């Protein structure tokens, strides 16, 4: 980044005396209609510290952040920035006070370019009202390059895939000269390959005395990155610990409020032994937009993990199987017969279901109720006399999903946009829980889902597998893959390696190493 900025940063770091907290909140209360999102929360952020914020889905993390960002006004409580008591008048106000946020649900303008988005609301101007386009593009390029983010300033955001949008969100926050940097689940679909970009950036800014609030459900990240953690439960602060004094099991316990029995992952491995099971799906040299000669075989009871870096084309492969991308070349056989899904409609009718990567774009009608969203995917099941819709069955079905996945909402009539991120993801999974699934495709299935619910979802997936369904998982969370999968394939630029058995993989580092090897293979 340009030197003058760095000096600005240092200047700001100097301003705040070590003793005084950058942010201190006491007794913050926030209600949404019937829901109490924050019930008297205390929170403190010191300069230069990386402060982890943990809690179940719906615990109130994002709400607290919205209050900090001036998006929501607290109903009660005291809020100080650098010792000065403030009542934020709005986002502009909190920006002006040096708070910049990476939001959980993407907040980019798809019709504008990367540079435009980075400087949205803080454009550089020439002659009063005219934009200084060149300056913006140059500065954008500097920021992106400085933090090693692989994006072109002139690229329109509508062409970016989810992971890249997430990186752009981060770049946007970094570009703002800020005192406080808030990251709300920035890694939900970043892979090991991009983690260094993010972690490097976080460490750098904290070195400059900037306070960082880091929300994540990936406890390993928390342990690695943060100095201090605060845990929320049902809108209340249930304690802050120095990261060094705590451990993952302890954190899990205080998050969930009870001890969580770890899945025995060997079960996943063990299922691959024994007599050969019928093949459900096989791709041979399949070509489609973004997929270049993919080969893949999935047998009943298998849980195959797709391992790849961002942009590798995992999403594309899944979408191709799902009929969302026209197959240009190659052979697909599905449950014995050759199969070329003409449309998603087609694939779903044949029992192929996809949990998409970007829940807001592909998963949900945000303005509709939980019930409507779940029903949307199960209309054939609730059909009566060809034309009519069995509303009661649909409601009880949705109610069942809500309880099974512990979706935190007053009722199934709540609009999905009013749910917390993780609870929204649960709804997306809930759409496909029951009803004629033969092949389940999961793209980042547990992005933003808390540890407790995550375990439940794993159980459900493994249960499906045991019932003889086939499952394909794309996840950037290697721990997740290791817990779920019976075998792995490695993906790079739309091509697929030969599978390896779960039993042959030791741990996350091992998995990452093998991916790197595979990518070298491909590039040769």
């Amino acid at each position, binding site marked *: 980044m340009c030197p003058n900025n760095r000096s600005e940063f240092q200047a700001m770091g100097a301003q705040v005396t070590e003793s005084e907290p950058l942010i201190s909140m006491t007794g913050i209360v926030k209600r949404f*209609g*019937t*829901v*109490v999102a924050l019930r008297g929360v205390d929170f403190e952020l010191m300069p230069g510290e990386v402060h982890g914020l943990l809690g179940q889905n*719906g615990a109130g993390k994002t709400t607290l952040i919205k209050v900090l960002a001036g998006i929501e006004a607290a109903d009660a409580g005291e809020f100080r920035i650098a010792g000065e008591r403030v009542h934020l008048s709005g986002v502009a106000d909190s920006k002006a006070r040096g708070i910049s946020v990476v939001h959980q649900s993407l907040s980019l303008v798809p019709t504008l370019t990367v540079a435009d988005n980075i400087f949205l609301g803080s454009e550089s101007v020439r002659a009063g009202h005219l934009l200084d386009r060149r300056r913006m593009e140059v500065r954008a390029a500097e920021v992106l390059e400085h933090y090693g983010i692989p994006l072109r300033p002139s690229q329109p955001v509508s062409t970016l895939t989810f992971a890249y949008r997430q990186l752009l969100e981060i770049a946007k926050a970094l570009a703002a000269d800020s005192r406080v940097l808030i990251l709300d689940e920035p890694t939900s679909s970043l892979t090991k390959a991009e983690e260094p970009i993010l972690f490097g950036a976080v460490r750098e800014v904290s070195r400059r005395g900037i306070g960082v609030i880091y929300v994540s459900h990936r406890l390993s990240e928390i342990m690695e990155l943060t100095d201090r953690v605060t845990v929320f439960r*049902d809108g209340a602060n249930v304690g802050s610990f120095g990261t060094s004094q705590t451990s993952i099991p302890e954190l899990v316990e205080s998050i969930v*409020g009870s001890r969580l029995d770890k899945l025995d992952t060997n079960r996943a491995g063990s299922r691959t032994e024994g007599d050969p099971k019928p093949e459900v799906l096989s791709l041979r040299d399949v070509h489609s937009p973004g997929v270049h000669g993919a080969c893949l075989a999935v047998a009943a009871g298998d849980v195959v993990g797709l391992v790849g870096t961002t942009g590798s084309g995992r999403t594309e492969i899944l979408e191709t199987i*799902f009929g*969302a991308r026209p197959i240009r070349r190659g052979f697909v056989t599905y449950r014995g017969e050759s199969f070329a899904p003409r*449309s*998603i*409609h087609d*694939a*779903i*009718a044949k029992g192929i279901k*996809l949990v*998409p990567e970007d829940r807001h*774009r*592909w*998963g*949900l*009608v*945000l*303005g*509709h*109720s939980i019930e*409507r*969203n779940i*029903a*949307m*995917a199960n*209309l054939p099941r*609730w*059909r009566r006399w060809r*034309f*009519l*819709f069995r*509303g009661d069955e649909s409601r009880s079905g949705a109610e069942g999903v809500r309880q099974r996945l*512990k*979706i*935190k*909402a*007053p*009722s199934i*009539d*709540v*609009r999905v946009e009013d749910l917390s991120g993780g609870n929204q993801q649960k709804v997306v999974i809930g*759409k496909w829980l029951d009803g004629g699934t033969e092949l389940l495709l999961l793209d980042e299935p547990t992005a933003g889902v808390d540890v407790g619910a995550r375990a439940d979802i794993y159980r459900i997936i493994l249960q499906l597998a045991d019932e003889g369904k086939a499952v394909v998982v794309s996840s950037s969370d290697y721990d997740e893959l290791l817990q779920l999968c019976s075998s792995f394939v490695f993906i790079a630029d739309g091509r697929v390696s030969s599978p390896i058995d779960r039993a042959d993989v030791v741990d996350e580092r091992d998995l990452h190493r093998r991916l790197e090897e595979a990518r070298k293979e491909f590039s040769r």
Partner: protein
Amino acid sequence: MTAQIARVDLPTEGTVRRWIRETDQPLFLYVSFAVLISAFSLATPIFLTASNLLNIANQTALVTIMAMGVAFVIITAEIDLSVGSTLALSGVCAALFMRDAINNWLLAAIVAIAVGAMVGAVNGVLAVRIRIPSFLVTLGTLSMARGITLLVTGTSPVLVNNETFWSVFAEGTFIGIAAPILWTVLVVAIAWAVLHYGIFGRQLYATGGNIDAARFSGINTRRVKTVAFIVSGALAGLAGTIVAARGHAIRPDVGAGVELDVIAAVILGGVSLFGGKGKIYGVILGSLIIGILNNGLVLLGVDPSIQLTIKGFLIVVAVAFAKR
């Protein structure tokens, strides 16, 4: 624990407010509706007479019928500006059919509805397959249909000489209720069932709410949208039939500009132009409110140049006050 929160907190909010928030029912419509009715019935005794109410129903019939179809289209986040011209074209076709081919009321009606459906299908295909913004498509078919109508009639009216046709679609009454009203009731009933109790309704809402999510849930969004356009066209065809029957003749320039009234009724009824939202009875109230305004202001003998102003004002107020 989550459940607890729900149980604990639910009572704290008024059930009415919750009902409004959770279901997007345009409560305000009831209110402005009630206000209007009471205001007018206080102002003039004639207003609440049965005959006058039937009067209003009869006058709003056309708009209500077309509003049902247009609502379908708008719920899928598309728009249909062509209903006015479609009405004229299909009405004229029915009339010509009776004059030059077979003078049979039923066949004529079928012709009209078929023609309307065809226009709708054209709209659908162009908007959905070729992906032209439906605003443009339907603006195009609007002037095309009108042009064709003027051509085939040579701009002069087409007479209808078929007693049965007249009475089935306009003059006949059943337990004192005029045919157009009965047709409206029938259409509304079906639309209601389809939208709120039918599979197709769910598909419409999902498609309009988030077309990608709908597709990824296995809904054939193209089919859904196309069908919506066809329904809209067909209902415009029915409206055309009624117009031809009412006038014992139909002019090629009939129905020009009616699309705005129809869309106004739909939006006033709480249907969102961005799709995925709206209720049938909202639309009914919407078109009734407009009808009542027109009727009441005339009964009060308000000066027409002021009527315009008042009407615009009241519509805005109705909604504004609703949002409180």
